[in-house]
């Protein structure tokens, strides 16, 4: 048997083509138009029948060369379904047999090729080409089919895309709610010397619900906490927003984290049909004593990093997750901080971050990072922690929100601030007059002693002159921020500028015992500042020079006269 080709009988057009092709093959091989037309009609009739009843019928054409030189064209109709060949067709097609081969049903018709003694190779090649060649109709039909398929897959894509987009946009809304609820401006409390706080939240693509918060309850207490809501998307973002709002509202007149969370839990658990819950660690730091009172409701245990670099794990837990069950009563503990200590809070997005090999980051790595941290500043601690998680995670996908908060305690303040003077000026020598006249108004308004006011003015003139003359060479973006806090016993003065690093107190005091001829003026201004102020310190913070001064307001001893 020599194979010629196969025609799928799946559509009207292909059945028509099968008829045409069979007819042409027979014409080519026999030149017998009558037989060709008759057999073609038979193919068409059976083909149309199969089109209705069959599943995926095909027509296969083969040539059978007999020893005697005569040849037979074998037409095999094949389908997975049983097929019947109408009696009327048998005569037309000649020698039709119907049977089953394996899983397929077959109808085989044998057409004797009269007139030609033998079919040579060239004839076989020609008829193969006839069968396999696609007609314009077939091509058009295929094109239409392809178009339709393309249209369908495009519509499917659109359907799935918009469903995906809907989900995506819901996740975006959730993330938006989540991020908008977080305090993100740092430094958060630039005028508080007793502490510094920094936090970050890196949302995962799908899971949302982490949060952090910090806010002053009153002049002496800051409340800070972290949490992780179960679930994802808008519901979890709303649950998080509700939790955060309830905590803040309760904390305004309740200084006990245990009491706050006990109340918040009851409110959250009531009507919580979604069965969501939130893990929370909540602390309140008393800025006068350095004592942190805290409650852990099912959250990862935070760490205290002491000023000497040692770590303490706040392992105590005081109750279950918040929102799950009404009537829970939470406990609380305290930990004392001294100047230089810091507390680090985090969510399980840190400890459960995965590397490309699916290994977990784990708490011990966090401990390693905190132990290795050289800078105790909250921003540096937060950054070191998150950076190490990124390094570990490498190109693996972030599976959960990663949230870290650090709060450092700098010791109690010298007293509460009664009034504050703030002014930010450009780095222009003319601005010194602006500063001093504004400060003179502030001093008059709050009845500062003239001597104090004048001393501060001299100091402003010296320091601003220094900074403006030397700190911003070739720059026009210079900016100097001045704060004067009036406290019961002192003026607390902060000057900060974005100039090049410069410590004005890094130079030696001038020799003030020299004669007129020997004296130079250099260094004298800073010497005046050092002497006229009671405390002077310089810090280089990130990209700013910060000079902190104090002028005591202690009553002058009564004049002897």
């Amino acid at each position: 048997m020599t194979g010629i080709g196969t025609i799928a009988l799946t559509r009207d057009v292909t059945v028509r083509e099968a008829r045409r092709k069979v007819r042409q093959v027979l014409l080519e091989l026999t030149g017998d138009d009558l037989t060709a037309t008759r057999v073609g009609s038979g193919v068409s009739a059976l083909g149309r029948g199969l089109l209705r009843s069959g599943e995926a019928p095909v027509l296969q054409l083969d040539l059978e060369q007999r020893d005697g030189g005569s040849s037979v064209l074998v037409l095999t109709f094949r389908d997975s379904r049983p097929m019947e060949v109408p009696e009327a067709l048998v005569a037309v097609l000649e020698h039709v047999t119907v049977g089953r081969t394996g899983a397929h049903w077959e109808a085989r018709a044998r057409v004797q090729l009269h007139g030609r003694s033998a079919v040579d190779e060239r004839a076989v090649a020609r008829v193969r080409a006839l069968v396999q060649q696609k007609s314009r109709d077939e091509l058009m039909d295929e094109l239409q089919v392809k178009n339709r398929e393309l249209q369908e897959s495009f519509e499917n894509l659109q359907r799935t895309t918009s469903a995906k987009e809907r989900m995506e946009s819901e996740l975006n809304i959730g993330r938006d709610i989540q991020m908008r609820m977080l305090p993100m401006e740092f430094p958060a409390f630039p005028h508080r010397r007793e502490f510094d706080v920094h936090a970050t939240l890196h949302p995962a693509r799908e899971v949302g619900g982490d949060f952090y918060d910090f806010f002053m309850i009153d002049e002496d207490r800051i409340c800070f906490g972290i949490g992780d809501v179960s679930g994802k998307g808008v519901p979890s973002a709303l649950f998080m927003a509700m939790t955060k709002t309830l905590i803040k509202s309760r904390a305004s007149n309740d200084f006990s984290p245990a009491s706050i969370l006990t109340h918040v839990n009851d409110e959250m658990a009531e009507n919580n049909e979604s069965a969501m819950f939130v893990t929370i660690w909540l602390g309140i730091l008393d800025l006068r004593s350095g004592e942190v009172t805290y409650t852990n409701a099912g959250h990862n245990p935070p760490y205290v990093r002491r000023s000497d670099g040692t770590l303490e794990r706040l392992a105590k837990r005081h109750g279950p997750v918040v929102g799950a069950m009404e009537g829970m009563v939470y406990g609380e503990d305290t930990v004392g901080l001294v100047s230089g200590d810091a507390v680090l809070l985090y969510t399980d997005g840190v400890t459960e971050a995965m590397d490309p090999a699916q290994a977990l980051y784990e708490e011990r790595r966090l401990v390693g990072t905190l132990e290795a941290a050289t800078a105790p500043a909250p921003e540096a601690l937060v950054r070191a922690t998150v950076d190490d998680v990124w390094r570990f995670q490498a190109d693996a996908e972030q599976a959960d929100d990663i949230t870290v908060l650090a709060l450092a305690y700098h010791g109690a303040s010298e007293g509460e601030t009664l009034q504050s003077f703030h002014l930010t000026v450009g780095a222009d020598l003319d601005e010194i007059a602006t500063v001093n006249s504004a400060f003179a108004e502030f001093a008059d308004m709050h009845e500062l002693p003239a001597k104090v006011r004048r001393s501060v003015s001299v100091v402003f003139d010296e320091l601003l002159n220094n900074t403006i003359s030397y700190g911003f060479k070739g720059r026009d973006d210079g900016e100097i921020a001045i704060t004067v806090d009036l406290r019961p016993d002192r003026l607390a003065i902060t000057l900060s500028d974005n100039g090049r690093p410069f410590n004005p107190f890094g130079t030696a005091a001038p020799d003030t015992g020299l004669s007129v001829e020997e004296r130079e003026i250099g260094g004298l201004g800073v010497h005046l500042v050092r002497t006229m102020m009671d405390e002077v310190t310089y810090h280089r913070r990130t990209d700013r020079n910060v000079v902190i001064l104090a002028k005591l307001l202690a009553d002058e001893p009564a004049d002897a006269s």
Partner: protein
Amino acid sequence: MDITTRTHDDVTLIGFSGNLDTNTSSDAEAAFTSVLDGGGQKVVVDFTALDYISSAGLRVLLATAKRLNGVGGTLRMFGLNETVEEVFEISGFSTIFSVFPDEAAALAGL
């Protein structure tokens, strides 16, 4: 800052009111230069109306004193408030400048 200049015999009295600091020191310097360029050798500075002085002001006083020393002239001051006096103390200028309690004392013997 206001600068007033008056003469008393061969003595020039220069009075400053307000602040002698970064932004006003060049005006003060111009006033001293003008007196010295005019041949003045006896200069008395009236600080009665001066609120405060910073090192920028001290630099002008020092330059004036050096120039007068060079020509055998005299620089005297009076009317310092406690802040100006403190600045003079801290800077050591109270020992190198002739400071008097008032105008009469400053002019006496010149």
